[in-house]
């Protein structure tokens, strides 16, 4: 197993060297423009940033963001199955330590502190950027792991654009996407509609159920279907941009979505077919209004947004004569009002300042209408941010960021960040980066007020992070190499864990200390030759996330162990090849073993073996008069492997999808 990791890591490291050879021997074409991402920006000094290539966003438009993040970034996604909830963790931290924003406003649930990334279609994203670790302080506090930022962008140059995507796949899967763009250089509208649904009724050998063969007495495992696993998601994104004057930009963006999924029984379930039926509905509405003013004295931005999430969780039985009877019917309403005023100014060419004020208000009400259990609470947040960025000569950038937050009037300890970038070789994009920062993450409203046993006395989680890295990029003629290696160390104290209180109840306390150290490596390498184009992008992460807390009791074996569900090694690679109008994509994704016990038991039962997933797709693009048409055939789980990615939840075997795109 280790061998494979070495080969994989070796290839990623060797690739830039390899590119050298290829350039020398093959590429003689005149230089074309390669849009390189700048890496020596004083505003980003010391931080680790990832911008996902827009070509990847386009190619994976019919996937959910959870799939894209696990396939193309170093973020670890814990997915509970196909179409099921998926959460993101950076650098071995908890899902709640990842801050998520959409067009600048936070869309993390104030109740749970996290986002279900399986519910975000890549289709609605025009720009996806990640800030690893403390770099997220520039957006908001609390992103001890990092932040994921989703943006929409106007396409000013297009007067009219119409596109439609139809996907049809295995297990009754249908995806429809429609986009209409209208406008001119002063006003622009974009409308996106989408609809995804799947029966998700794949078959598997059910190892959780044993039938005794009456003749031989042997235990047999039946062939089973993923019952009650269907999902449905549809939504609308409406963007409106107005540029009344060259110095002013106004925008209003709305995103509404409804998602519904049935939650399958445990695979070992042999209860009645009409009982324990679990279902989850989520309706969300987000809207953000922005005004950007490029004044002579600096850039102002006023942003005001709303994020509302309604989540219903239902467990019901069908009773003859009575219809359906709920056993649990939990209804949660979450409303967040989010406002930001910011100001940026360049003072000369070498010094810039930034100031920001955030004022947010959250309301959560949640109740199980069957038992009457629930809570209704709110939270007010005020955050002040100031940053000072300076360039010293051509080779040194410095970035000092300071943040002070108040939660319900109480000051959170001060959040500072200091980062530097140093250009190692004059004229080359070879940058040494380093930073040190402190960050705080507030307990979620569930941590504080959950009935029973929410703990209003919880302290914020505290992270102290150091990191250092090297980044290199080079564009020559028509190819580009970009690579980076980052080392980090985060000491997280007062980590909140839900531990047993009394039988059947848990309570959250500030108990754990976690030391998370690791490496992140990424590589992107692309180029063109006449009708041939290629691209390889890959990431590798080494993530040691160790429990450093005191044992709860003398027999507690979790101290010094890797946190549950965090793989020590993870990596992915995507290969794109294009010839004339045809394209081929190979996607590989892997994780090393994951533990489900805090003591890292290696018993077969509690251990998730290493995961290797291979997908391929082929397609072509054609033009019929004004219509651009493309067709693509995708194969998921190429080697038809039986596997599971959470305990006892078998995943689908080889499956297929056809995607047809029309562009006008």
């Amino acid at each position, binding site marked *: 197993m280790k061998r494979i990791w070495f080969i994989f890591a070796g290839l990623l490291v060797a690739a830039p060297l390899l590119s050298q050879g290829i350039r020398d021997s093959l590429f003689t074409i005149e230089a074309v423009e390669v849009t390189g991402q700048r890496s020596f920006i004083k505003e980003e000094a010391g931080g680790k940033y990832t911008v996902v290539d827009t070509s990847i966003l386009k190619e994976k438009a019919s996937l959910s963001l959870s799939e894209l993040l696990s396939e193309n970034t170093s973020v670890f996604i814990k997915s509970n199955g196909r179409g099921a909830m998926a959460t993101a963790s950076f650098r071995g931290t908890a899902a709640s330590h990842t801050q998520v924003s959409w067009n600048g406003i936070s869309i993390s649930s104030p109740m749970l502190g996290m986002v279900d990334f399986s519910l975000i279609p890549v289709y609605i994203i025009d720009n996806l950027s990640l800030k690893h670790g403390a770099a997220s302080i520039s957006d908001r506090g609390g992103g001890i792991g990092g932040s994921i930022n989703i943006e929409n962008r106007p396409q000013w140059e297009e007067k009219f654009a119409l596109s439609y995507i139809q996907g049809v796949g295995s297990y009754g899967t249908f995806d429809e996407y429609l986009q209409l763009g209208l406008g001119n250089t002063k006003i622009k509208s974009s409308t996106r509609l989408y609809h995804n649904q799947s029966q998700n009724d794949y078959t598997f050998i059910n190892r959780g159920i044993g039938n005794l063969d009456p003749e031989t007495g042997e235990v047999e495992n039946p062939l089973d279907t993923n019952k009650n696993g269907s999902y449905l998601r549809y939504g609308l994104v409406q963007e409106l941009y107005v540029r009344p004057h060259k110095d002013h930009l106004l925008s209003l963006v709305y995103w509404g979505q409804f998602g519904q999924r049935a939650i399958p029984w445990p*695979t070992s379930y*042999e209860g009645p077919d009409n*009982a*324990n039926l679990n279902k989850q509905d989520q309706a969300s509405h987000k809207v953000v209004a922005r005004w950007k003013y490029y004044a002579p004295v600096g850039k102002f931005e006023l942003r005001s947004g709303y994020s509302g999430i309604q989540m219903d969780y239902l467990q019901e039985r069908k009773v003859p004569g009575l219809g359906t009877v709920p056993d649990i019917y939990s209804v949660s309403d979450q409303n967040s009002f989010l406002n930001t005023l910011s100001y940026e100014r360049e003072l000369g060419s070498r010094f810039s300042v930034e100031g920001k004020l955030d004022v947010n208000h959250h309301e959560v009400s949640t109740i199980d209408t069957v038992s009457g259990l629930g809570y209704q609470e709110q939270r007010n947040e005020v955050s002040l941010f100031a940053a000072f960025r300076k360039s010293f000569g051509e080779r040194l950038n410095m970035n000092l960021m300071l943040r002070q937050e108040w939660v319900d009037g109480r000051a959170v300890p001060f959040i500072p960040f200091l980062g530097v970038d140093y250009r190692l070789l004059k004229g080359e994009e070879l940058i040494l980066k380093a930073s040190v920062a402190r960050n705080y993450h507030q307990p979620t409203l569930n941590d504080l007020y959950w009935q029973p046993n929410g703990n209003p006395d919880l302290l914020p989680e505290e992270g102290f992070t150091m990191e250092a890295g090297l980044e290199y990029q080079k564009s020559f003629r028509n190819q580009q190499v970009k690579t980076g290696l980052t080392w980090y160390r985060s000491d997280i104290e007062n980590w909140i864990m839900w531990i*047993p209180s009394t039988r059947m109840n848990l309570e959250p306390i500030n108990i754990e200390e976690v030391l998370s150290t690791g490496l992140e490596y990424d590589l992107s390498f692309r180029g063109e030759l006449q009708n041939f184009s290629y691209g390889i992008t890959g990431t590798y992460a080494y993530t040691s996330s160790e429990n450093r807390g005191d044992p709860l009791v003398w027999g507690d074996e979790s101290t010094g162990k890797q946190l549950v569900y965090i793989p020590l090694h993870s990596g992915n690679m995507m290969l794109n090849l294009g010839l004339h109008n045809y394209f081929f994509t190979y996607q590989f994704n892997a994780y090393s073993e994951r533990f489900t016990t805090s003591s890292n038991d290696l018993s077969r039962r509690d251990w998730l073996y290493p995961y290797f997933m291979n997908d391929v797709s082929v397609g072509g693009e054609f033009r019929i008069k004004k219509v651009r048409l493309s067709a693509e055939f995708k194969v998921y789980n190429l080697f038809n492997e039986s596997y599971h990615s959470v305990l*006892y939840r078998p995943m689908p075997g080889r499956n297929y999808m056809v995607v047809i795109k029309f562009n006008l």
Partner: protein
Amino acid sequence: MKQLFSILLLLLAALTSCMKDDELWDFERLGVDKLQGVFIINEGNFTYGNSSLSFYDVSSGEVLNDIFYNTNALPLGDVALSMTIRDSLAYVVVNNSGRIYVMSASTFQYRGKITGLTSPRYIHFVSDSKAYVSDLYARSIAIINPLSMEVTGSIDVGNTQGGFHQHSSEQMLQYGKYVYTNCWSFDNKVLVIDSERDVVVDSIEVLKQPNSMVMDRYHNLWVLSDGGFEGSPYGYEAPGLMKIEAGSREAVVVHRFERGEQPSELHINGGGDTLWFLNRHLYRLPLEGEAPTLPELFVESPYGPGFNGGFYGLDIDPASSELYISDAVDYVQRGMVYRIAANGVPMDTLRVGISPASFCFKQE
């Protein structure tokens, strides 16, 4: 370019090695034949499907973990809750898998299953061919035939009068032809079932949320209520211990705990004259004559004052009166069991499965 492709091909070839799903059932099976010992039922985590059975051989001190899976290459299921031995067979109630697994109590070999149960909790044998299965959500008690391993009927116990979906059924005890079951969830009743007619014939009001009960040698039912919790929509009262005379069904409160205390796991020794329960620590209450004394602290929890939890499960070997106390630690690692002699002397510490919740004693 060729270089690149050959490396990619090599890489592809290296990666086709499969994931190790086969290891989950392709292994050497456990083959034992045990006369006597203690089963530990490990609940595991809800929806993880990682519950398991452990076996402690008292004479040798050997602990066998995950015995059902290791014997049958079949996982026990999701949240195993309780186990009862009848003759040579053991019946394991697997709550969130909606079934009862039947296995040999000595070789642990899988013998069959009773399926179609909504949220089964405990099994109680009325006779060789009739048993009751209590249930958290069904609002009925399932009647099963253990011989044919089939559900043969049900006893409706539901109550929708009080604004709450009431009468989940938990533990069961029998006096004469009457079976008593405590209703824990948002409830304050002990129901009385006529086991000849399979109907509820009476209900006894007790303190809020009776979580466990036992019967002493004088045919008194002892019921421990946790009182609910602060802020519960059903209401909250100080927890307490009640005594119900099984024949007359007269109930009296014997002991009242402080508000905020969370007593659970009421058990009785084999002689039926000493009560044991958990209330952060382990307590004992000898039943001497008519007026019992206050519960006395017997073993202190190893957890500091910041922790409400600590001990998780409790039982008493009916033959030796030795105590078995379980500790689930953080719920996500293999838990521990302390074996303690009746006089309080520690005898052994066992490392068992995840969330060890209850015990079952196999006598020779």
